[in-house]
Structures are given as structure tokens and as C-alpha cells.
């Protein structure tokens, strides 16, 4: 390699076709229907009559290469080395031999990767980096997710039934890399203190005009502190979005005491029955309580249980709440309704109740 070669770039991802198992290559685009014979297993039948067995196992998403190698070994043993990951970070083993379904499930479970997450269940939580990697995080991601999934595990492995799919998402700050804005239940890390400004760094590290204009509420003004150019924040106008921090590292929001979590409910993205919906605020704030965030776990379980007990078949969380009405949601869950629940951002008026359509009966 001592020779000077033209640097290879822009080759793009490898073509997926080389990674597809033969049964998929043969029946690509020619699947007829599917069934879920047991939690965690999908059977797709092709028009040709061929069958594909997908076994879905849980994953922490954050994965050591040791585990990836383990999965590779398992795939070699049971399904010709074929596997995939899902859009929610589970791992799926792709079998053409039904006989291997039971053994692979046993193998996966014994290694600590239980199967489930299909059908009307709670599958893996889409989440983000948290304290593992991000500078912006108001809480850890993986720890909260792990704690919640441990608690909700019976909804994953099919022990406990749900009326419909229930999708949980997690994001550690308002950037929402976990796309929590359209989830049945979402957990979102929130800051509650206005940026702490490192005045000596502002002018060195940031463009003051773009820092000022980054603030959606106009809370930031240029100023001079001890003779250096900097900015100041009108605290009453700050709603802790951290956009200033994104554009200017000298404006930190992280706070060990006042950061924490909020809970959102009733979003969805599928078009099945109801149009996609945004998640709506359920609980404005729960303090950070590592390592297992018991209050947050409890709050999520409460919502899941009330939903499971009250929703109709195929009714996602948002559809259920829309049917019973938000006042009833707050009543059933015992969640306190506060001024924070009432929107005051730019389309706020559109969320006010502009009719007499609510339940008056006591």
C-alpha cells in the first residue's frame, strides 16, 4: 500500500442485494401474506408458497462488537448467516427452516436477547445518545430506556396483551433525535434553567449575531460584560429550548438539579385508521433519578395500564384519548392538569377548545 493510489470516496453503501437470504431473493416483491404464530415470530408466505420465518430479538441498540459477533455466530448456526436490524433497533434472524425457530429463540433468550415486539405489543424504544455521548442531553437515554423496558417487559414478550401497538420513544433534549414528537408515549429530557453564559468564551467561540437570532423567543440580547462583548438572556422569556447552545457552546443549559424528564402521549405516524398525530404533553416534569428513574418508570406504566384497560381493539393511545376526551384522560390517569399543558407557542389558539363538545356530567 505504499503506492500512492487515487483516494476512493463516494462509493456509497454496499448494495443490499448481496446480503439477502436466498428465499428473499427468490420471492422479492412476491410476498402474499403473513402471520404471527407467536410473539416475536413473523411468518411471511410468498405467492410461490415459500415461507420466511423472522425471529425478532430485543437489543440495547448500544452494542459491543462482541455481541454483533455473537449474533453473527447465531445466524450462521440457524439461518445461513442472514439477519437484519429493524427500524426500531431490534435484530431479526431470517430463517427459511421452521424447525430452527424454536432452537434459535432458546439460544437468543439464553444469551439475554429475548424475542418479542411483534403485533399489538410494546417493542423496542427508539432513543438517542444521552449521557453516553451527547453534549446537549438533559438526562441519560439508555438508562431510562432500559429501566422502562425492564418494567414493561411482559408487554414485549407477549405475556400481557395490549389493544394495539404501543410505540415508545425517547429523546434526551428538545432536538428530539428520537423523534418523540409522534409517539404513543414519549419521554423527553428537558432543561429548566436559562443558559449559563460563559462570558469570556462567547465572543471567542460564537458569532454573537447568530447567537442572538437563534433564540425563537427573542430572549437573547448583545451586551458587554467586564469590557468583553457577550450576550445576556432575559430569563422570563427563556423556555429552555437550547437552540442558543447548539449555535454557541458558551451557553450551557445542563443543570444537575433542574434537568429532568417530561412525558408525552397520543402521537402516531402510521396512517392506519387515524391520520398521523403529534404527541401531546402529559407530565411536564419528573426529576432525574438515576440509575433507574423509578418515578418515570412508574408514570409510563401507569399510562400503559390505564390505556390497556380502557382502549378498544386496534385503538392506539391517541385514538383512545380522542374518543374519551382529554379531561377523562387526566381523570383516569390521575395526572394533574396544569397551566403548562396549555399551549402558548405560535399555534396555541388552535388547541383551545372552541366548542361546547365536552362532557359536562360529573
Amino acid at each position: 500500500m505504499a503506492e500512492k493510489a487515487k483516494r476512493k470516496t463516494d462509493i456509497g453503501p454496499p448494495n443490499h442485494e448481496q446480503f439477502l437470504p436466498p428465499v428473499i431473493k427468490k420471492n422479492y416483491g412476491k410476498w402474499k401474506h403473513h402471520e404471527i404464530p407467536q410473539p416475536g415470530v413473523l411468518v411471511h408466505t410468498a405467492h410461490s408458497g415459500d415461507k420466511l420465518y423472522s425471529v425478532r430479538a430485543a437489543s440495547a441498540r448500544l452494542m459491543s462488537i462482541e455481541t454483533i459477533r455473537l449474533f453473527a455466530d447465531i445466524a450462521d448456526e440457524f439461518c445461513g448467516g442472514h439477519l437484519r436490524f429493524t427500524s426500531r433497533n431490534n435484530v431479526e434472524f431470517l430463517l427459511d427452516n421452521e424447525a430452527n425457530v424454536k432452537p434459535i429463540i432458546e439460544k437468543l433468550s439464553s444469551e439475554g436477547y429475548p424475542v418479542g415486539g411483534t403485533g399489538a405489543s410494546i417493542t423496542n424504544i427508539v432513543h438517542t445518545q444521552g449521557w453516553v455521548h451527547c453534549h446537549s442531553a438533559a438526562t441519560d437515554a439508555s438508562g431510562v430506556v432500559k429501566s422502562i423496558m425492564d418494567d414493561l417487559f411482559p408487554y414485549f414478550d407477549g405475556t400481557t396483551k395490549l389493544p394495539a401497538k404501543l410505540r415508545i420513544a425517547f429523546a434526551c433534549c428538545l432536538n428530539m433525535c428520537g423523534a418523540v414528537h409522534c409517539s404513543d408515549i414519549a419521554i423527553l429530557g428537558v432543561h429548566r434553567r436559562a443558559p449559563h453564559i460563559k462570558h469570556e468564551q462567547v465572543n471567542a467561540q460564537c458569532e454573537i449575531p447568530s447567537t442572538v437570532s437563534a433564540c425563537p423567543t427573542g430572549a437573547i440580547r448583545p451586551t458587554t460584560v467586564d469590557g468583553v462583548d457577550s450576550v445576556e438572556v432575559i430569563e422570563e422569556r427563556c423556555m429552555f429550548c437550547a437552540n442558543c447552545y447548539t449555535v454557541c457552546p458558551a451557553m450551557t443549559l445542563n443543570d444537575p438539579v433542574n434537568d429532568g424528564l417530561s412525558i408525552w402521549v397520543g402521537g402516531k405516524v402510521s396512517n392506519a385508521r387515524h391520520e398521523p398525530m403529534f404527541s401531546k404533553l402529559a407530565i411536564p416534569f419528573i426529576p432525574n433519578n438515576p440509575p433507574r428513574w423509578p418515578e418515570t418508570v412508574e408514570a409510563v406504566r401507569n399510562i400503559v395500564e390505564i390505556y390497556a384497560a380502557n382502549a378498544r381493539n386496534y385503538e392506539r393511545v391517541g385514538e383512545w384519548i380522542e374518543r374519551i376526551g382529554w379531561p377523562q384522560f387526566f381523570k383516569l390517569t390521575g395526572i394533574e392538569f396544569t397551566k403548562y399543558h396549555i399551549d402558548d407557542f405560535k399555534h396555541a389558539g388552535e388547541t383551545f377548545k372552541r366548542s361546547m363538545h365536552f362532557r359536562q356530567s360529573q
Partner: protein
Amino acid sequence: MAEKLRETPLLDELEKGPWPSFVTEIKKSAVKNSMANDQLGILERSYKDRIGHWKHGGLVGVMGYGGGVIGRYSDLPEEYPECAEFHTIRVNQPAGWFYTSDVLRKLCNVWEKHGSGLTNMHGSTGDIIFLGAKTEALEPVFADLIDMGFDLGGSGSDVRTPSCCCGQARCEWACYDTMGFTYNLTQHFQDELHRPAFPYKFKFKMAGCANDCVASVARSDMSIIGTWREDIKVDQGEIAEYAKTVNIADDVADRCPTGCISWDGKTFDIDNANCVKCMHCINVMPKALAPGDEKGATILLGAKAPIIGGALLASVLVPFVEMGEENYEDIYELAEEIWDVWGEHGMNRERVGEFIQRVGMGNFLEQVGLDPEPEMIMHPRTNPYIFFELDEEED
């Protein structure tokens, strides 16, 4: 080289319970890899301090690329020296996240050689995330990746790594070849993916049908979702079978959003002119019902997270496009048209969805050369603030 694991009394609590533990994952690498071990330590420290220990990112990357690496430095470099630099590398996944054991092992080898041994399988946008690289490792990782046929994904103000549902590879409902199209698209826009030049990021997500298993309508600037135009295919025999176990009246007909299904206990009938292709009835009875012919897709535009004008869902831009390979080029041209307009008039850090709201959908359509269609809106305007443009004669 065997490492002595950092003490992690708090994190150890997270090794309990049935769900796979990320702490266990970190330890699996940490016993062999000092970067992973320091990462374990600094994370424990965060759990104790209740605050992250990462600093705002720095500008690092590989030669000739403007994206693909997120720089990261810790604020405790003395205490956890091995993860003082802890960048992530976004590796563009194969469409649909399909792998062989073989290729996975090769990826692991690369990452064992140069990095922490920790990954995210996968990142929220879809990439394979190599979690924790020193600056000096970036070029070698890149070289090894290219060698084995992989490339970096997007970051910064560029086309972000496109992703898609498994589509026709495994799903009977896919109305177009999401994976084939995603591969083709990603290859087509390599330059836009690697060299940020837009006002802000631009994400593509491809779903084979309205179930949208890749959450495209919420998470991509351009969302391409499969659909169809002809009648839903009904197998009355299979309906009769389902009728034995499914409450078709309550759980299917009654839940149809337009009420276009009639079911008298015997015949299942769909008024297809009023079907909005929501997928529900098909979802419930996959053996009896299937999407109709004349398949294609709807293109929606503008989804994003809340920063800074509030979250957006994508909205209809092209109600129906055919999705044969011969149609791909048209979509690329449309995307380029959009980038031209947005590139010229968009403000810094203004996603395309916000841009459209600022300039007005009507104007935007005119500029990208599309006709307004009622399918693009939920309902016409309610306010009378119309920017009338007078014809010359009227003036």
C-alpha cells in the same frame, strides 16, 4: 489487552432485569478496550453527577468529506484520558439493514482495530454508528471501510443517510421497491450527502405503504410512501375464515376512517372511491385483503423535529407518482429543483418545511414547477389574506 473494569456501582443496577443491558454491552468491550472502559467510567460519573460530561462538538472529519463524523470531547480529559476524544462515525447502512454474518464480522474487525468497539445498531437516522473514535483513527477507519465497500453517512447541512422499511424484501404490502430505490437514491446523491452545502439537513425516508414503518412522515424532509389507485383486492373466501375469529363489523368496518366498508355478515364490500388507503382493513385481515393495482407512491415534504419553529409532519407534495426504475430520475430532478429554490432563498438552519411555511406553499409550488392540487391540503384557507396577483390587463 485485558482491562480492569472501572467501578460502576450505579450503572451495575442497570445490568439487572430482562431487557438487554447497555451497561453489559459497554463492559463487554471495556474488558478489552481502554476507550470503552473510560467511557464506562465517565458514564458512571454522569450518573453520580446527574449531568453529561461531553463538550459541545468540534470540527473533525475525513479528508474531502464535510460530514459523517460527529466530534466529541469530554470535559474530564484527565480523569478519563482514553475517551477524551470520543467521536462518532456514521457509516451508511445497507438499505433495509440487511446483513450477512460475514459482513458484520468485517465491520467488527475494523472497529476493533481502530475504535472503542462500541456501536449503535443503528442511529436514529439509520446509520451504523461507530461510537468513540480518536481523531487519529478517523482516516484509517475510513480507508478500511471503503476497502470493504462501505462509506460514511451524512451529518451537517447535507443529504442525510436515506433509510427505508424492508419493503418488498419481506413485506407483502410494499407498493414499490423501497430498498432498491433507497440504494439508487443514495448512490445518486453521494456528492450532496458528503459535502454539506444546503441551508440545513435534508432527510429522505422511504416506506412501502401507509403503515410507514420507518416513520417517514414524522422524520424526513422528503417522505416517499407507497400507495395504490385500483380497488383493494378482496378474497371473500378468506373473509369468511376471518369472520370466525375477527369481529369484522366492530374491528374492521367501524374503524375505517371514511366508513366506506360495508359488511352484512356475508359480503365484505369496499366503496373504493372513498377508500383513503389507510391500510387498516388490510392490516387486520392480511390473507383476505391486499393493496390494489396501479401501485406507486405519494411524496410528502417537510417533516422535522421542533427546533426551532415547532415540529412538523410532512405534507403531501405529489399525490401520486409511479415508482418504476424509469421514474427515479423524475424524483431526483424534483429533489434538485427543491434544493435549488431552498438553497437560494432558505435561511441558515431553516429546514425545508419551515421554509415552505415562510414563503408560502403556493409560491413554493410555482418555483419548483408543480401545480397546486387539493390533495395537498386538509382544507383551503380560512383567512382572507390572499396575495392576489393581478393580470397585466386588470392592472
